[in-house]
């Protein structure tokens, strides 16, 4: 049971990842609830991401100044 469940979860994680990239493997399949949730989160986080990416490109701020790692 362990191996088959782990392998199945690896496939689901790949599908979820591909749902938020430009390269979905199978566009004919209905996205799983996890993939749909990831797409919703992608839309929610997109404005913040774009702002930070723009800052890196144009202001050349070090990434670590923007993304603070707590507890390190």
């Amino acid at each position, binding site marked *: 049971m*362990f191996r088959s469940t782990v392998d199945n979860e690896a496939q689901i*994680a790949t599908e979820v*990842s591909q749902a938020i990239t*430009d390269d979905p493997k199978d566009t004919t399949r209905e996205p799983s609830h996890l993939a749909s*949730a990831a797409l919703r989160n992608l839309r929610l*986080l997109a404005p913040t991401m774009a702002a930070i990416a723009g800052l890196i490109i144009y202001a050349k701020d070090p*990434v670590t100044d*923007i993304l603070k*790692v707590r507890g390190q």
Partner: protein
Amino acid sequence: MQHLLDKVHSHLNGLSVGPASDDARIVLDTYEYQGASRAFPLLPCLTTRALGTSTTTDIPVSAAYLACNLASEILDDAFDSTCANRPWTRWSQGRVAMAVLDLIWISQASLARLDVDQATHQDILHAFADTGLLALEGQRQSLTPIRTLDEYWAQATKKSGAVFGLGVWAGARLLTADPLLLSSCLKFGIRLGILSQIADDIADFVAGSEEVAVRGSELDASLPVVAALTAQGLPTKELAHLLGLPSERRDATWASALRELVYTQGGMAQSLVLAKTYQDECHQLLAKLAKKPAPELHAFIDSHSTHFDIQSPRL
């Protein structure tokens, strides 16, 4: 939660397994899980409590789980050389290997003395062995270059997902043989492990330049890098160039350039989205499974997003 951890340590100290090596004792006495991460070695105990039944047998199972996880932790420390304040980072490879074997056999001794029915005992022994082999398979896969999401998730679910899955499943198996409930518990544990792996990769990715430069090969296989490669279909010339540089040419400048490139190509954004998605999913699965409030497990889920935090851009 500390009282549970104390019980687990007390159980390990009380095992009549002959003279465990001083080195295994040093590891057991000095390794500290911080804050909410103390829930990790206690997953079997916390699961039985969340499922609403108290049993004394969850302490020996958690003890076995803790000893196995410590064996893995000291191997990570010894090979990554990132936690110089821990004594085993200064041990020889042979000494580390002996301590690892000690911990694994201590784990087996704890399981061997488990006072449960034969079918439960057999299932739990099989699960520990199967998970150990799966985790090793994942570690072996991560030694080769990882360039696709398929490859990334194949190794990440074995390295982290299976291990967390075991902790939750083993706790549940002490209470039930119901295949549906056990399957749900395993799925929750695996997804918790996936969340942990995503969070670790993000934290590695934004860590200080010197540390990342030292661990450059690990950075290559991190989720933000693999996601950036995939988002572009084919790696851009600049990204391929940076990833192709040998270790002696990887310094803080290299790490900084790689981070900026991966970030602007969307690898970081996708990783953060995945972290948020799995965090929400774990809370939902736990809420469905738990028959009693499980604040420690919910806090453990949330602790993974405190490894990183998106600050408002300074304009």
